[in-house]
């Protein structure tokens, strides 16, 4: 299957700071998604972004498919942004392969 690497593994932010999370993948993909898992374990779909750039409020994402990476930007971070951010990709078979995640802690 497609290998997915996320960096950094852990990130500690002061409230109001900006940050960038990175996702590298090993092969061409039909689908790339970013998820946020809150401290209670619920996974929420943030972006469907196989290529290009999207923005949703303080979050935005960019995928450069030809170079096999995606970036998730968090601006003006808030404590509610804490949790684990996962990148997941699939090729032709609808099976998502997940990275190990980036654990973000935002301190007040």
């Amino acid at each position, binding site marked *: 299957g497609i290998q997915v690497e996320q960096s950094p593994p852990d990130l500690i932010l002061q409230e109001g700071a900006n940050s960038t999370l990175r996702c590298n993948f090993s092969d061409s993909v039909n689908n790339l998604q970013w*998820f946020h898992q809150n401290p209670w374990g*619920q996974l929420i779909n943030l972006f469907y972004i196989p290529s290009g750039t999207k923005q949703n409020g303080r979050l935005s994402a960019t995928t450069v498919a030809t170079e096999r990476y995606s970036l998730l930007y968090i601006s003006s971070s808030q404590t509610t942004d804490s949790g684990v951010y996962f990148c997941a990709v699939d090729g032709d078979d609808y099976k*998502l392969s997940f990275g190990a995640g980036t654990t973000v802690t935002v301190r007040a």
Partner: protein
Amino acid sequence: DVKVTQSSRYLVKRTGEKVFLECVQDMDHENMFWYRQDPGLGLRLIYFSYDVKMKEKGDIPEGYSVSREKKERFSLILESASTNQTSMYLCASSFRDNLNYGYTFGSGTRLTVV
């Protein structure tokens, strides 16, 4: 509000027991998935299903089986639970069209095998 519902939030079972984890979705999605989540490993796919009575193995199917008798329900079965199956289990359903790809997860079942 659309939902994927998992039958139990926490479950404790004994080694050797047969365990059923139930998942129901109300979105009429074709695709359903079972993942397990372990610290530092992300989510790993156990089994998935594209249609009723259809199933395919994921990356770690050993020790598990599944059943999909109705479109809305996808069950994960641990034939003989072992301590290394202690984990968080997450069910998901998905759709895809020309513009979007929706993936919805349940809240998870934290299974402890003692």
